Each structure stands twice: as structure tokens, then as C-alpha cells.
């Protein structure tokens, strides 16, 4: 049993008050001078057992009554039959983490974390409030509140089904807050069902402060944080990257980077069977796993040369976390990686065009077009993976501005270089300020080398960013994420906080600006990585993280590989990993990479996130089949009433009043002993 207000338990010694009062009263009773003590002693001795038992019972009941009051003040929580007496809230909002990691389950149990949490919570809601409370489901995948007819519907509705999405718990709580703001209610219980995966909770986000303040202002809101932070047992996960179809001579092959990750390192090298299914045809290949993780770059599978496009998946043997045992992919002949450079100073951007048109992969086209700003309408937006813009920002509201936004929204890349004369206009929350001339060339003293454009190479070698020499650079203002910084924390390469495929380069590659063109390695890697980023959404076969359906095509999406369960509603299709097809478009949906990280928030951290709110943390395990707890202070009050009633009955005067016939004085005066 736990308590919501355990501080009141310090008053438990007060339960001994009846005993103390009893002892005090013993010596404050009315004294009666008495002579016939010999009879009194005999009577006491004969009655001692029953009398003492009765007295002990009365005192125990009084102590129990006081203890019940104190315990009820401390707001006890209990499960099982004891937990059936909790009060019913007006509304129960179930916030469900539907991320892929919630599908984890022990090999011995068929129930996933999500199912176990839903079962227990629905049962608890049924037991505690029956049909008296309004039950609303808010899931992390759709963020749309769904009013349920009964608690058991939590287990049946599609909006509580499994997904391979990533959860954003702050956004889920914001959704609950929005719902409560638009649907004012009395007492509201918020059940948050999650596995506490760190990446889902984003504990460092600034949104938490706002959420805490907003919820604290809402009266009668209580949080029940039902956590299942149980790491999977011996989980093995697989992930593919850079899936592409390669041709060479008379053969074709499917090439990708393969990553295997195990929860714990095997004691001896372990052979892992990988089952590849391409267009419905399965092949098996073995891979030896020597450490907790293995990465195989440029893993290739032979393809029929006539097979230009298709879909497939790779599968691992079943384990406790089925969500990361499969990875889906699609392929097609790689589309040309087209880039367009729009510059007001064509001479300054010639090195850019030279780098972009140099093919890093044989057999693939890298067309690059150089345009002046007045010819921006000639940009082939549909085929352009990367747009390099070296001119003033387009004015908001203009068609060109809209085309910029659409280009970025479609997942294409945008690299912005400062114009010769910076203007007072913004794009993606950032603006160029003014050019700075360095007295002598400066070099970047920090750059982000673990990811993004300046990341180390696959073999871990760092790009020679530190050897660059920057003579002239332009300042940037606004909220951004730096990718490279000059001394004094001046940004050299950055991207807006809100967009991950938009980049700002604060200098020019020509000799007057920097040594980027002279030391072309960094420029080449930077441009082609940006180009690859934009190319991900290029073509008709694309890879995406399972999330809301793309709406770029008019034809409905349909599953094609059979891995999606039959009867899955159309609005839930994109939430599951699998292959979807819409017309000529193929879409491979997979879980978010963050879902493979088995790092969980501790209950203490969780309490910190809900500090100041009426929240309790219920940490559970999948193996624990007991019911959840609920507040049972009413039970204790009822127990107190029962104890007082029993005490009153025990204290009632004896119903057998002395009868005169039995009295020793009956016939006393007239019956002296006969001699």
C-alpha cells in the first residue's frame, strides 16, 4: 500500500491516544469507599478473562478507528479488492504511448507492454468508477481525443492498437491540456501509459515547464503515471540504411548498410540468421555477431537485372521485442541527384557547381544547374534534391516564397548562402545580419562531427574542418542549431531549430570568402550530404518513419507486402511498419531509430517532470498480473465507522439486570439462619 500524502503518517502515534485516555480515565474514575472488597476481588478474579478481553477489544477498536482516520487522511492507495472503493472522477483521460517500444513483451508472455497497460487501466477504471466516468483516449500516434463508451473499449478501438511510431509525450500532454481546456470537467484522472523510454519523453524540452504551469492551474486534475520501464530480455534489433539498387556490367544488386544491435553482448560469437524477402521471395543469410552491435556497410544482395523496382524486408528470429525484428525497404533505379544553384554572383558559386556535379557514385547522374535570381522560376522543383540559394530571401507571400516552403516540406534540401547585401528579411526564423571581415583568416574551432553535414566519415575519420580558413563571413540572428562555429561562437554552418533539411552557410567558397573551394574535401562532403538528405524524398520509392500518412498523392495507400494486419483502418496504415503503395509510389515505413534505444527514465526523474502536480507513479512489470491501485480512503473511513460501531456495542451496559429474586438480600430480614 502506498500513500499520496505520506507526511500525515507521522501522526500515526496518535492512534495510541485511546489507550492514553483510557489510562488517564482509570485514575479519574469516581472513587467509591468500599468495605466488602473480599467479594469484589472474588468477582474480579472470576470475571478477569472475559473482562480483560472485552477491555482489550474496546481499546483495540478505538485505536483502529483513530488509525483509520489518520490513514484516510494520508490518502492510501491499494489494489485488488481493497482498491474497489476509490471514488469516481468525472472524466478519465487515458494518454497512451503507442510507440514501437511499447510492443515489447517477454518471450513467455504474449501480452505487450501496451496491452498489459491497457488491460490493467481499463480494469481499474471499471472497478473504481464503472460507467460513472467519461473515458477519453488520447494516443500518441494520432493525438486526437476519442470518447469511449466504456472502459473496456480501450482494448478494442483501433486508436489503441500497436504502431511503429515514435512518441512525443510532451505533445501528448499538450493534447490532453487542449482537450481539458475545451472540455471543462470536474475531477479528472489522467492516466499516462508509457514505458518511460527517454527519447519519447524528451525531458530536456522547454515544454515541460509550460505544461506543469498549465496543469497546475487546472483544478481537480490527478495524474496516474503507469510505467512499464522493463528492458527487453536479450533483444536483437536490425536496421538498414542507404538502401539502393546498384548496377554494374550485367549484374544488379541491392546494397545497404546493415546494423545489428543486441541488448547485451553475447558470451561467444553468435550466428544470426537473416531472412531477406524481396518482392515476396525469401532468402536467408547468416551473419556472425561478436559484440553487442555489428555494422556491415555496403551489404549487397544480388538482384535480377530486369527487376528495376520492388520492395522487401529483412527479418530476425522472434524475440521479446518484435518491433525491431523487421526492417522494410523499397528500391528503384536511383533518380538523378539534381541540384540547382541560384546565385547573384555566378563566379562565386562556380566551385559549388563543380563539386555538386562531380559524381561520387559511378553510374549515377548528378546534374547541376546554375541560375541567376531572375531565372528562379526555371527551377525544376519536382526533380531538385538540393537548392543552393545565394541571393536575398524571397519576399513572404510571393510564389517563390511558397515554393521554398513546399520544397522544404517535401523533404528536399536547401542550402542558403549570404547575399552580397544582406536585407532585413527572415526565412525559417533566421536572417542575415552583416558581413564581417577577419583581420586574418580564422578557422572553425568546433563542429558537430557525430551527425549532420560535417559528421565523421564511416571509418571514423574526421573531416578537415579545422584547417579551413575563413576571411569573410556574414552574421546570422535567430534560433538555430550550430553545426560549425568560428572562434567567439560565431556561426559558420547552422540550421534552423525547426527544420532539419535547411542549412545556412555563413561564407562563400570562393577565395575572397574562404578556403572551402581550395580545400575542397569539406565542401564536397557538405554538399553531397545535403544532396543525399534532399534525395531521400526524391523518386517514387521512398523510406519514411512510420507516422501520419503522406498526402502527396491522391490515390489511397494500400499495403503490399502482407506484413500489415488485415483490417487495419486506412488512417492507421502509415502508423505500422510495412510497405504501402499508392499508384506508382512505394513507401517503406519503419520504426524511428530512437525506438531502438533502451534507455528509460527513472521514477525519480518522472516525479521531477511532474513536480508540483498531483501525480503518482505506478511502476509495474509485465509479469505482475495484479490489479492497479486506487485511492481507498473511503474504505478506511468505513472501517473507522465499523470500529466505532463495534466499540459502542461492546460498551453497552449488560442487558441482564440483577433480579431481586437472585439477590442475596431477598428475604433477608425474615430469614435468619435457623439454629
Amino acid at each position: 500500500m502506498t500513500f499520496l500524502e505520506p507526511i500525515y503518517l507521522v501522526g500515526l502515534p496518535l492512534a495510541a491516544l485511546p489507550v492514553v485516555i483510557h489510562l488517564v480515565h482509570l485514575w479519574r474514575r469516581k472513587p467509591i469507599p468500599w468495605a466488602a472488597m473480599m467479594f469484589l476481588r472474588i468477582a474480579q478474579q472470576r470475571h478477569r478473562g472475559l473482562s480483560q478481553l472485552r477491555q482489550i477489544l474496546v481499546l483495540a477498536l478505538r485505536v483502529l478507528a483513530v488509525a483509520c482516520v489518520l490513514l484516510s487522511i494520508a490518502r492510501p492507495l491499494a489494489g485488488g479488492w481493497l482498491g474497489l472503493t476509490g471514488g469516481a472522477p468525472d472524466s478519465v483521460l487515458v494518454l497512451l504511448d503507442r510507440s514501437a517500444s511499447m510492443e515489447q513483451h517477454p518471450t513467455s508472455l504474449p501480452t505487450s507492454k501496451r496491452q498489459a497497460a491497457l488491460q490493467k487501466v481499463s480494469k481499474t477504471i471499471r472497478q473504481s468508477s464503472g460507467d460513472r466516468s467519461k473515458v477519453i483516449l488520447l494516443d500518441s500516434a494520432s493525438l486526437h481525443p476519442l470518447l469511449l463508451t466504456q472502459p473496456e473499449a480501450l482494448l478494442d478501438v483501433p486508436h489503441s492498437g500497436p504502431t511503429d511510431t515514435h512518441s512525443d509525450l510532451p505533445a501528448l500532454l499538450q493534447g490532453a491540456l487542449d482537450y481539458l481546456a475545451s472540455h471543462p470537467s470536474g475531477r479528472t484522472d489522467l492516466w499516462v501509459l508509457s514505458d518511460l523510454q527517454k527519447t519519447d519523453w524528451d525531458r530536456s524540452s522547454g515544454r515541460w515547464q509550460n505544461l506543469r504551469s498549465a496543469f497546475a492551474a487546472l483544478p481537480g486534475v490527478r495524474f496516474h503515471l503507469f510505467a512499464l520501464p522493463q528492458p527487453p530480455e536479450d533483444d536483437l534489433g536490425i536496421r538498414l540504411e542507404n538502401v539502393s539498387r546498384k548496377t554494374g556490367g550485367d549484374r544488379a544488386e541491392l546494397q545497404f548498410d546493415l546494423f545489428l544491435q543486441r541488448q547485451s553482448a553475447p558470451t561467444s560469437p553468435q550466428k544470426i540468421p537473416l531472412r531477406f524477402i524481396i518482392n515476396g521471395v525469401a532468402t536467408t543469410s547468416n551473419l556472425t555477431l561478436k559484440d553487442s552491435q555489428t555494422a556491415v556497410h555496403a551489404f549487397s544482395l544480388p538482384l535480377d537485372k530486369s527487376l528495376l523496382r520492388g520492395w522487401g524486408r529483412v527479418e530476425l528470429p522472434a524475440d521479446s521485442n518484435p518491433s525491431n525484428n523487421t526492417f522494410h525497404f523499397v528500391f528503384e533505379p536511383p533518380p538523378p541527384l539534381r541540384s540547382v544553384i541560384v546565385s547573384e554572383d555566378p563566379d562565386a558559386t562556380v566551385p559549388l557547381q563543380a563539386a555538386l556535379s562531380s559524381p561520387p557514385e559511378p553510374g549515377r547522374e548528378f546534374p547541376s544547374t546554375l541560375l541567376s535570381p531572375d531565372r528562379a522560376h526555371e527551377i525544376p522543383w519536382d526533380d531538385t534534391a538540393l537548392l543552393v540559394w545565394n541571393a536575398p530571401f524571397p519576399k513572404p507571400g510571393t510564389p517563390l516564397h511558397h515554393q521554398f516552403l513546399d520544397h522544404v516540406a517535401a523533404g528536399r534540401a536547401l542550402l542558403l548562402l549570404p547575399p552580397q547585401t544582406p536585407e532585413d528579411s527572415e526565412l525559417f526564423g533566421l536572417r542575415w545580419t552583416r558581413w564581417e571581415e577577419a583581420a586574418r583568416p580564422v578557422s572553425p574551432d568546433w563542429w558537430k562531427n557525430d551527425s549532420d553535414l560535417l559528421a565523421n566519415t564511416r571509418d571514423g575519420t574526421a573531416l578537415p574542418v579545422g584547417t579551413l580558413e575563413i576571411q569573410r563571413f556574414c552574421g546570422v540572428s535567430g534560433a538555430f542549431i550550430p553545426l560549425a562555429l568560428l572562434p567567439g561562437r560565431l556561426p559558420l554552418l547552422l540550421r534552423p531549430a525547426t527544420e532539419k533539411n535547411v542549412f545556412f552557410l555563413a561564407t562563400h567558397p570562393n577565395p575572397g570568402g574562404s578556403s572551402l573551394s581550395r580545400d575542397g574535401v569539406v565542401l564536397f562532403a557538405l554538399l553531397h550530404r545535403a544532396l543525399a538528405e534532399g534525395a531521400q524524398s526524391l523518386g517514387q520509392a521512398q523510406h519514411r518513419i512510420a507516422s501520419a500518412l503522406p498526402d502527396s498523392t491522391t490515390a489511397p495507400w494500400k499495403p503490399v507486402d502482407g506484413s500489415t494486419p488485415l483490417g487495419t483502418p486506412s488512417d492507421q496504415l502509415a502508423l505500422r511498419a510495412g510497405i504501402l503503395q499508392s499508384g506508382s509510389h512505394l513507401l517503406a515505413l519503419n520504426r524511428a531509430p530512437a525506438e531502438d534505444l533502451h534507455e528509460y527514465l527513472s521514477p525519480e526523474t518522472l516525479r521531477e517532470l511532474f513536480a508540483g502536480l498531483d501525480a503518482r507513479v505506478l511502476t509495474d512489470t509485465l509479469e505482475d498480473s495484479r490489479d492497479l491501485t486506487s485511492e481507498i480512503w473511503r474504505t478506511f473511513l468505513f472501517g473507522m465507522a465499523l470500529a466505532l460501531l463495534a466499540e459502542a456495542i461492546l460498551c453497552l451496559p449488560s442487558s441482564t439486570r440483577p433480579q431481586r429474586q437472585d439477590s442475596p438480600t431477598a428475604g433477608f430480614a425474615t430469614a435468619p439462619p435457623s439454629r
Partner: protein
Amino acid sequence: MRESRSFLDPAVLARLMALPLHARHAMLGSVSGKHRSPVRGSSLEFAQYRKYVPGDDTRRLDWRTWGRSDRFYIKEFEADTNLRLCLLLDTSGSMAFRPAPPMPTELSRLEFALRIAGSLAYLAAKQGDAVGLSSMSDTGTPVSIPARRGAGHLGLVLDQMSKLTPAGGTTLVESLHRVAETLRQRALVLIVSDFFVPTAELHHAIQHLRFRKHDIAAFHLLDRQELEFDFEKPARFVDLEGGESLLADPTLIARNYRAAVAEYLSALDSLVRNSGIDYHRVLLHEPYEPALAKFLLGRSPKKAGR
């Protein structure tokens, strides 16, 4: 100290004067009186004939019997002697018990006892009997006045009575044994007490007195509350004899209490029957005069007076 001799009610005494105090057994008095003596004397009441032995007073020869039987017989007559009334007053703490206010009298047990003992002392003295007094308590100096005759001695006894106060534990049994040992001549031993002692011990003491051929009379003073134990609420019962107090809930123990009292009274009745003492159980809320009258009438000789 209570007002001297206030326990004597002249009206009650005047009414009781008509009832003489008789001994139920022969007494060995020092002077002539109203009571039978085991020795033969010169009263008018014939006792027996016995054979003449040399040395007998020839004036007591019954010549008529000699004439009929030609044998010498001495004709003997009963001797009348006086009575030694030995008053034994229990002055232990329990004698301070006073009935609860609803009762018609508010006399304590000792005050009640003094009225009985004082009245009998007065009546005995008035008819020429000797009166003595002994108090029974383990606290203070016990009063022990040997039985003597005379108005002056009665005054001493009554004055000592007025000075008695209840305190300490009872020494009833020990006092009875002591009196049995010290009282050499036959006497009427009148015990006034609550008799809150084990009946077995009391039985031995009474037998001791009986062995000394004393006439034993007892006034057992009890209160109705002591018998019925009719209390409503739990209370602390304070021992009047100085023992530890007891916390008790009368509603729970009343039945057992009454059973204990009944057993005690039954044992006491058995003792009375076996030892032949003149026993009178008196309730404190009742007037003492009827009890005294009953006592005096009960001791009157069954046949016609002399």
C-alpha cells in the same frame, strides 16, 4: 470525636428496659443476679437431689425423702448470679462504610454498631450485670476494658465507645481467639461486626469461644449495596481498610459478586447452625431498635419465669 454517648437514645432504652437481657447458658457470676449459675445456691428454684456425704449442711437434708426411703438426701436449689457482658466491637476501616444517600439513615456501620452495643451495655448494667469492651482493629491502641459492674464502669465503657474511630484492617479472628484465651469466666460475648473475614477462620475462632463455654451473640451489620452491588457505571472501589483500590465495571461483575456474597452468607449460616451462636443479620438502613428487641426476646427463657 463524636458527641459523648450520643449513640444512646433514651426513648429506645426506655422501651427496651421492659425486656431483660438473659444469658442462654449458665453464668459464673461473682454476685447474685438474674442469671442461672452452674453452682447450686439458695434460690427458690429446685435443682436436684443428691446423696448426703459427711460434711454436708444437715439443714439441707430433705426429711420427707428420708421418711419415705430411709436414706439421706440433700435438696439442692439453683443459684442466681450476675452476667458478664463482653462487647467486642469491630473498629476496622470497613466499619466506616456509610450507606449511599438514598438510604433512610446515614449512619456509618460503626455508628450503627455503637447504638446496638451501647444500648445493650446500658441494659445489662441496669440489671446489675458486668459490662466489658474490646475493640478489634490493627491500627492504634485497642480498647480492652474488663467486665465490671457499676454505673461508674458503665460510664467508662460508654466514654470509650464514643472515642472509637474506624481505621485499619480487621483483627476479628485474632481478637476472638484472644478473648477466648483471656476471658476466664463464662460470659456473654457480643460481637458487632461486618464479618468480612473468611468463614473458615471465623469458624475456628467461634469454636474456640464455645470451647470456653461462653455464650456468643453476633450482630452482622451489612448494607444492601454490599449485597446487591447495584452500580451503574465503572468506578474505582477504594478499600476502606487501606488495601489497594480496584477498578471494576459493576455491569460485568455484578453477577459474580452476588454469587460470591451468596456463597459467603450460606457458609456463615452453616457456621451459625453448627456453633449455635445467637446470630442477627442487620441491614444498616433499617432501625436498630427492632433488631435489639428481637435479640432480647429471643433470649428470654422458653418456660414460665420463676
